[in-house]
């Protein structure tokens, strides 16, 4: 299907942008390409072919980890810490990391997906162990809470929002907010505070990371039955800015609009990282490559246990464990192992695990993912502020009217405030139901055009400054926590092993967060020992 530029911009950025199609046709256009993920590789699985493994292509291992995202890498890390050496980690793509991947570059590295981790509460001891091992920690405060080294905590100015031609500090748009807007915002904060302080009879929080420790009390789980937007309306909220703020939150963390995400995950976003009412939410740990720093640490610890570019086509449960068959550069290889940690997206399980369809304890199709594209723009210099009093370039830069999430600045955390930089632009495909197919209808030129046109409303010089723009299309970026998913009971069923296969993907939490992937990865590792 060929569409005009006018239609393309109207579809991705909204009708007013159709006009940009005629205005800006003759601009210089940077180089770049589609990088990373190869949809074709993964889609081999859909064919359901069977592969013969030559007898000398078999080997044995104690544990095989399928999938090298954060969950699989955390499993490998935990197994190593516990002295289990005979492990293979098989990754489909050329590099591990999943949606926490990053690239090296000049002047600094830059992320392709997840780019921060909120400082965990003191109770999250596994994760703190990781941060300690990585020397990100300075010490503990009087309450035993973690103190992370200053250089890893997101540097101010953290966020700014572009609205009607100007940049303002923060994410909630205070500029031009009326009394009623501010009253509703305060009321919203009050409700959040209420949930932060809420405890059930057993003393459990309503919303906490890891999600497995959240209260299952009916008062809380009822929130999972409605969309976040419906819930806001039920509370009597009408402020457009408040809706935008909440919508931004769910798009940012879940790739869903507030109309699509459940109220439970909406509140999880606002409550789970606040220790107690009245205190700031937990600060962010970040660095130029984002969560790529954790990937790199896991990778260096796992060493040669990691095997990239391996398409796992079939896992055959056996009495002693399982046989894992994968394609290595077209050659079928087999690994006979005692246990499998399945850290690939859950919806792939029926295609890979033999016999799963016949006796499935849960329906893998219910784990639905949404699609994103991420662009990295390499700039020769910083966009020039249009007004002397504009709020300056921040870590996270959001455009109020845009369906994108704006961009993060890779050089920000390093204190490199002048000269070349890299901006990472995020676009969740949640504005239509068929986001994934829409994403793959468009090649590099179209998506780069969308990105540049979107950013040009805030930065007129973006075309002149950008020398290169590379794009990654994430067909299955994140699990979609729509209403009725998280508390449907499916998580409890899926977290149980199937034969000798232990599931570990972040899908099992229903939210795609680093901490959740890490939780399930380490949990599965403990189970197989």
């Amino acid at each position, binding site marked *: 299907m060929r569409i005009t530029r006018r239609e393309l911009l109207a579809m991705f950025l909204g009708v007013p942008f159709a006009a940009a199609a005629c205005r800006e046709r003759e601009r210089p256009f940077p180089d770049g390409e589609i990088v990373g993920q190869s949809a074709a590789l993964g889609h081999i699985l859909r064919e359901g072919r069977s592969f013969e493994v030559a007898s000398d292509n078999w080997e044995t291992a104690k544990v095989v980890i399928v999938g090298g995202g954060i969950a699989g890498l955390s499993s490998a890390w935990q197994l190593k810490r516990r002295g289990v050496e005979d492990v293979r980690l098989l990754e489909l793509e050329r590099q591990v990391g999943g949606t926490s991947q990053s690239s090296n570059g000049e002047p600094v590295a830059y992320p392709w997906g997840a780019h921060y981790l909120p400082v965990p509460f003191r109770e999250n001891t596994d994760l703190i162990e990781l941060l300690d091992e990585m020397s990100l920690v300075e010490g503990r405060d009087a309450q035993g809470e973690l103190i992370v080294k200053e250089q890893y905590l997101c540097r101010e100015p953290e966020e700014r929002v572009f609205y009607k031609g100007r940049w303002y500090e923060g994410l909630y748009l205070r500029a031009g907010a009326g009394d009623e807007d501010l009253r509703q915002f305060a009321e919203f904060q009050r409700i959040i505070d209420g949930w932060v302080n809420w405890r059930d009879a057993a003393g459990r929080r309503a919303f906490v990371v890891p999600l497995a420790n959240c209260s299952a009390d009916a008062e809380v789980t009822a929130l999972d039955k409605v969309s976040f937007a419906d819930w806001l309306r039920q509370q009597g909220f009408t402020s457009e800015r408040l809706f935008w703020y909440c919508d931004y939150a769910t798009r940012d963390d879940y790739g869903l609009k507030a109309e699509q995400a459940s109220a439970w995950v909406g509140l999880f976003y606002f409550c789970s990282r606040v220790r107690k009412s009245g205190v700031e939410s937990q600060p962010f740990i970040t660095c130029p490559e984002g969560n790529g720093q954790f990937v790199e640490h896991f990778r260096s610890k796992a060493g040669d246990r990691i095997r990239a570019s391996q398409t796992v086509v079939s896992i055959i449960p056996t009495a002693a464990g399982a046989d894992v068959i994968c394609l290595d550069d077209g050659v079928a290889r087999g690994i006979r192992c005692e246990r499998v940690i399945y850290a690939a997206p859950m919806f792939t399980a029926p295609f890979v695990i033999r016999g799963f369809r016949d006796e499935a304890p849960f329906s893998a199709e219910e784990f639905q993912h949404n699609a994103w594209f991420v662009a990295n723009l390499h700039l020769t210099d910083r966009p020039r502020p249009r007004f002397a009093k504009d709020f300056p370039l921040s870590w996270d830069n959001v455009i109020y009217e845009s369906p994108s999430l704006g961009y993060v600045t890779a050089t920000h955390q390093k204190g490199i405030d*002048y000269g070349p930089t890299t901006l990472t632009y995020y676009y969740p495909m949640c504005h239509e139901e068929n986001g994934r197919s829409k994403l793959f209808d468009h090649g590099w030129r179209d998506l780069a055009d969308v990105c540049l046109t979107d950013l040009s409303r805030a930065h007129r010089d973006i075309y002149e400054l950008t020398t290169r723009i590379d794009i990654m299309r994430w067909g299955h970026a994140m699990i979609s926590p729509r209403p009725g998913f998280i508390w449907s009971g499916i998580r409890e069923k899926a977290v149980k092993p199937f034969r000798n296969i232990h599931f570990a993907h972040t899908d099992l939490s229903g939210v795609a967060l680093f901490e959740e992937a890490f939780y399930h990865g380490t949990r599965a590792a403990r189970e197989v020992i």
Partner: protein
Amino acid sequence: MKSTPLLFLNVIIIATCGLIYELLAATVSSYVLGDSVTQFSLIIGVYLFAMGVGSYLSRFIETGLAERFVDIELAVAVLGGVSAPLLFLSFAYISYFGIVLYTTVFLVGVLVGLEIPLLMRILKDKLDFKELVSRVLALDYIGALVASMMFPLFLVPRLGLVRTSLVFGILNALVGIWATWLLEPLIARNKLTALRVKGFVVIVLLAIGLIKADSLTTLAEDGLFVDNIIFARSSQYQRIVVTKGKLGYSLFLNGNLQFNSFDEYRYHEALVHPAFAAFEGTPRRVLVLGGGDGLAVREILKYPSVEFVQLVDLDPEMTRIAYTVPALGELNHRSFDDPRVHVTNADAFVWLDKERPEPFDIAIVDFPDPNNFALGKLYTTRFYNLLKNVLSPSSAVVIQTTSPLIARRSFWCVMRTLEAAGFTVRPYQTTVPSFGIWGYALARLEPFDPPRHPPQGVELRFLNDQTFASLFEFPADTTQPDGEIEVNRLDNQALVRYYESEWRRFEQ
């Protein structure tokens, strides 16, 4: 034609106007760009060349000479009349000032170049050639003399550049309108009224400009300076301006005064020598962060024991002009020419994060005040922790820390931040008339008592035993204020917020 003598009066006026526009352009450009020799010479050259182009082009005007002449007068009136305000505004608000400048000069030059040839052709039937050339050219040069006398003696001091420009635009337009009467027989009837209406509109517009001249000037001179600008350039990082006034030279970065040569020795002596006094031992290696004007280095080089000075300043343009602008070179005693001095252009934060030089005995930290986040990071615990990496346990550090009178919380925020980074801090303050009451932090990694005397054997103009001891005394209105003061960290940038709220009180 009975009006011929009056036409000769016109020649004087247009010649005067023509030269005035040229002088205006040259003055405005040397005013804002500095280096008046270059500016005047380039503007005069381009202008004369453009007049030549105009004279040449006059051959292509075949018919309706009188009408064309009036049109050209009106065009010169508009372009020349708005030239000064246009140039001021474009300098203040757009980056391609040079293009606007030379385009304006060229266009005015072309139009003025057309005037005299056309006028001579109009008059050629009235006089014989010998007479015509001698009279017109003589009057032309008389006009030039009138202009060049009036401009510096009367126009600039009394009217200012913007009003002069507009007044002469109006004069030019009047010549145009007047010519419609003088040359009435030569102009087609049906065109006459149109020309007069045009002329009238031009005069009204310029007159409105003249009435609004004050606000126009304020708008244009926003960010301009009281004293004469002898150097001005926008580098990649900031706008650097050096001015010369009655009290001496001043350096401004982004409009903020960095020093005045009249009292900078007070500031720089107070910045450098207490750290040397606090260092126990023989100072050999000195680090200077910021200080691209070379004045702190001048003080450092007074110590013969110093073997190595590493200066790290963000802006290559700044350190370059510290050599190349003669006034600055004289003031800093050409300190950057000293073989002991090594200049590196880098953001000190990034430099400290990357480099691992041998430890320094003394570090002089002299950044602009923390009025934005990029500067605020240079006052954080992270920055001071990075600084520790290039110090030894006995090193002495000094930091300029804004005014404890005007920005009291900001000043004490820096002290608390240094303490949080593990330094023992001895705050001190002095008076620098150009700045007011000014503050510094003397810090070491080991506990120490504030030094009591300036170092021996160093020639000083300001510091003596009495002033030295009083540096460490704080009057009641500058002591640490009550209430909690946050430590400045990368992830809160508390100092930038203190600073902004405290200095905002002094802005209009």
